[in-house]
């Protein structure tokens, strides 16, 4: 009996090892730098969802050498690559302190040679909006939602010493929108979620309307699946503790691109716990992010290290 189980387990392990080897082969380390006793690395890989080479940054805290650490996914905003967060947000110290692996993927597929992909800064390259496009010509490559919620976690769990049970997500602006829809669209998948100046209600704002029309077509009912406010209105599942920071002097807040009040109203109605902090004097920049990223990582650490 035990012998049988043992051989079976051994066989399973052998298979797993071969699988890892295969996927590992697909990961290419682009850079590695020691940072707060851990390592800030960048990897490149061939994405099956996006049908292109994708890069992501990963911070491995010193603790990751000893134990499997939880993973916190960061989603950047419009125009960003994985580099912006790594170089500007100064998140590594908090990651090292709380023993959290921070994964920062790119914001869209790149080099797919789609007509007009580089024409706009708020659509196409650098503006994937973390949705699965349904319209041509985007639907083949622009599957950022599937990439963020499925492929990337699988890749990370297979290649790094992380705890696959413990993941959380946060982001900024479009990434904040991405974080909220990933969390609210997949109840229970993420232990916690937070956002900095997120686009809270894309169906109501110019950025969102433009992107959704392009990626999803003109049927607005299909949009709602990628709108945080709409998702909040219909949310059922374990209540996430959502932390949102917003600069009061954010020009996009004033321009009506972010619409946090709509999201807050929806969450108030649905009793989804949100703490929304309007930070006096801050704008939409990475200076704002760098100021509060520590609070956010700590917020996630509460749930990831619980």
């Amino acid at each position, binding site marked *: 009996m035990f012998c049988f189980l043992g051989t079976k387990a051994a066989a399973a392990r052998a298979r797993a090892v071969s699988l890892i080897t295969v996927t590992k082969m697909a990961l290419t380390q682009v850079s590695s730098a020691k940072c707060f006793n851990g390592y800030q690395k960048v990897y490149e890989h061939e994405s099956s969802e996006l049908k292109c080479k994708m890069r992501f940054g990963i911070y491995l805290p010193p603790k990751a050498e000893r134990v499997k650490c939880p993973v916190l996914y960061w989603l950047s905003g419009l125009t960003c690559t994985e580099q912006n967060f790594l170089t500007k947000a100064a998140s590594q110290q908090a990651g090292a302190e709380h023993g959290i692996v921070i994964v920062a993927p790119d914001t869209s597929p790149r080099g797919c040679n789609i007509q007009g992909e580089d024409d706009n800064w708020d659509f196409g390259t650098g503006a994937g909006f973390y949705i699965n496009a349904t319209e041509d010509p985007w639907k083949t490559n622009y599957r950022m939602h599937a990439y963020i919620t499925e492929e990337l976690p699988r890749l990370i769990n297979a290649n790094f010493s992380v705890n696959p049970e413990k993941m959380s997500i946060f982001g900024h602006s479009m990434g904040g929108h991405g974080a909220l829809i990933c969390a609210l669209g997949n109840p229970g998948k993420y232990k916690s979620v937070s956002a900095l100046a997120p686009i809270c209600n894309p169906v109501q704002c110019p950025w969102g309307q433009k992107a959704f029309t392009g990626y999803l077509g003109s049927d607005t009912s299909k949009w709602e699946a990628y709108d945080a406010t709409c998702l909040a209105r219909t949310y059922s599942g374990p209540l996430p503790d959502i932390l949102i920071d917003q600069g009061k002097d954010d020009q996009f807040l004033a321009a009506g691109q972010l619409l946090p009040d709509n999201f807050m109203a929806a969450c108030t109605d649905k009793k989804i*716990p*949100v*703490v929304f902090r*309007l930070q006096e004097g801050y704008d939409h920049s990475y200076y704002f992010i760098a100021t509060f990223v520590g609070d956010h990582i700590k917020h996630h*650490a509460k749930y990831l290290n619980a």
Partner: protein
Amino acid sequence: MMEEQLLPVDPVIPEEADPEDPQTPEKAPGEGILVPQGERELSDEGQLEAAGFQFDHSDLCEPGQRPQIFTEKAAASQVQRSGGRDPGVNIHPESLPISALDHADLQFPKGEFATGGNLMDFSNFLPGKQFDPFQQIVDGSETTSQSSDRLLSPISDRMEQESESAQTAHHPTALTMEPSRETESELDSQEISQDTIPDVYCQSCQIPIPAFEKLFGSHRHHRVAPLPLAAEAAKLECRNNVNKLEQQLIQMETFVNHLEEIFVTVEENIGKQEHYLEVQYDDLMQFLVQGYEDRSQELEEEKKLKLEKLYGELMSCGQRIDLYKELLETTQRLFNTEDKQTFLKNGQTTLARLEEFLQLDFNPEVPTTTEFEKFPTDMPEVQRLIDSISSIPVPSAPLMCPQTPGTATANSMRVRWSLSADDTVEHYQLYYRQLPGGGTQQGEAPADTSLKVKEMYHTIRNLKPNTVYEFWVTATNSTGTSAQSERVKHTTVPLAPTINRRAVASCQDAALIEWESGSQNPACSYTVEFCQVCNGCDWRESLTESLTGITSCPTLIELEANENYLFYVRALNEGGCSERSSPINIRTTGCQLYLMEKTAHLALSILEDGLTIVYNEDDVHIDRPAYDNRFTSCAAVLGQLAPVQGKHYWEVEVSEHLEYRIGVASPNTPRDSYPGSNITSWCMRHTFTPSRSKFEFLHNGTSPDVRITVPPKRIGILLDYDTGKISFFNADIPQNLFTFSQQFQNLINPCFALESSGILKICHGIPIPEFTKLP
């Protein structure tokens, strides 16, 4: 004396002694054992005790001698009884038989050993029940009666040795009972058959016999028992008897000790008496000698004086006689003068001289009396001295003992005094009075109360707690009363303090408790006693720690985290410590706070639990005492935490529509301003409009713009001095609502304020939750 006391036992003896009667002597020698008829009857009834006992005596003497002794003894006892006297009962039943038997060998007068024999038999035949009470009475007098016997004995030296040997043989005898039985059984088996080995015990004959004897032999109709069983029973009996002996020995030793004590005491007392007598006779003699000397000296002086006077008189009389003679001669000569002229011429002067002389009044007197003057003897003094010889001296003033710990309670006190060893006292008069003003007042004021006491101590009751009393005492005997003793001060202990249950604060590692003194006068200090309580243990047996010499109230006590404690307080003064206060239970799980009611706004009510705050906008309690410390504008109240740094966590239950301000404030935060509106307070404010709830986190009048989607019903507040943070949580979700970062230099207080009518309930004693770890 002793005999009279014991006489009631006497009638038993003739009955029981019957078997000893010489009428049945042929039976005794035949069997070779000391088992008379009566004994058999008893053992037939299964009285193994008596059976076990008998071997003692049979073992002590040669088989051949036994019949002879037996008869003699019996005869002797008869004689004894007819003499109407039964000294046997006075004699130790265990030790004497040996000597008695030995005496028999020595052909002592019958009366001597008969007493022993009598008793021996008596003790043998009587069942334990009848025998025991008697034996106990006798115990005390055993030694004395024995020694008196010794003195009576013609050859007392030998007797002494023998009784000594008897006493030493005491134990061995009992211990060797077992072998004795064997020898007997041997004897018996020899009688029955030389070859067989006994394997059962005949209860009727009390001898081991071979089994076939039961079946076919002389024991055919007797009751038999297995040999081991019989032996066991006999051993048990033997052991019981040994125990009895040992007990008696102990009693005996105790009695001897007692006698020795009495001996010493009597010796001392008599010695004292002799001393008194000597002193008193000395006094008397001295007095008499003094009287004699005084008197004889006086007599001597008187004699001298009188003789001198008489001598002087004698001398002057002689001179006078000379003068007479000379005058007579001169006159004679003159008379004889022939010559007339010459006679007349000379005679003139002589005659004139004679005339002059005769005219002098001659009246010789004895200058002193010959009689004795009456000499006053001080008879009353003599009488007094003589009287005092038979009486005792007046005692000297007793010596009051200082107060010793543990002799006083809150309303009673035990005072003691001592006396000079030579004094005899009939009773004491104890005086006491209450000293006002903490006993600082001096002087010889009269007593409030006095009472007569026989002992050298007394417990006075119905005193006031925590009060100083002054005590003194006089001793009185038939001769008189002593002077007053020195006055001593005793203090009653204070009443037990009362722990203020609504003023207890605790945290993980300390507790703050407050109490009220039970007495009017202040106690010197307090002792806080506490013990850990574990669930399921008997807490009264757990280790108690105590902190003594506490003068400040409230007081802070360091404790261990996550334990359950019981606290008691005692008050202390010079007289000792009070009873324990009733206990208070404190858990060092989480923190416990209390509301400082003296800071509460007049419109706030704090309910009986001490933790629920009720605010009614229309109902201001103007009847309450006005303290300067009260909040005046905002319906707020401060709480008190254990005054230590570290972490403190408490929760507040609020309803959704309640408007409140909760947080922390410095103890000296302005009472006329709203919490959060100044730099000495930090608070979360909830305001409610029909459309929405607004939450503010106020400090110095400003709040960051924070919106909360789920209004908390249970707000957790974490005050962390270590990291310098005050965090607010929605404890139900749990969600961190806001965190103030502020390094506190001084201790601060929880603060609760209501801005709309309603109820706010504080929950404490909650372990610091996990979710507060990363606010």
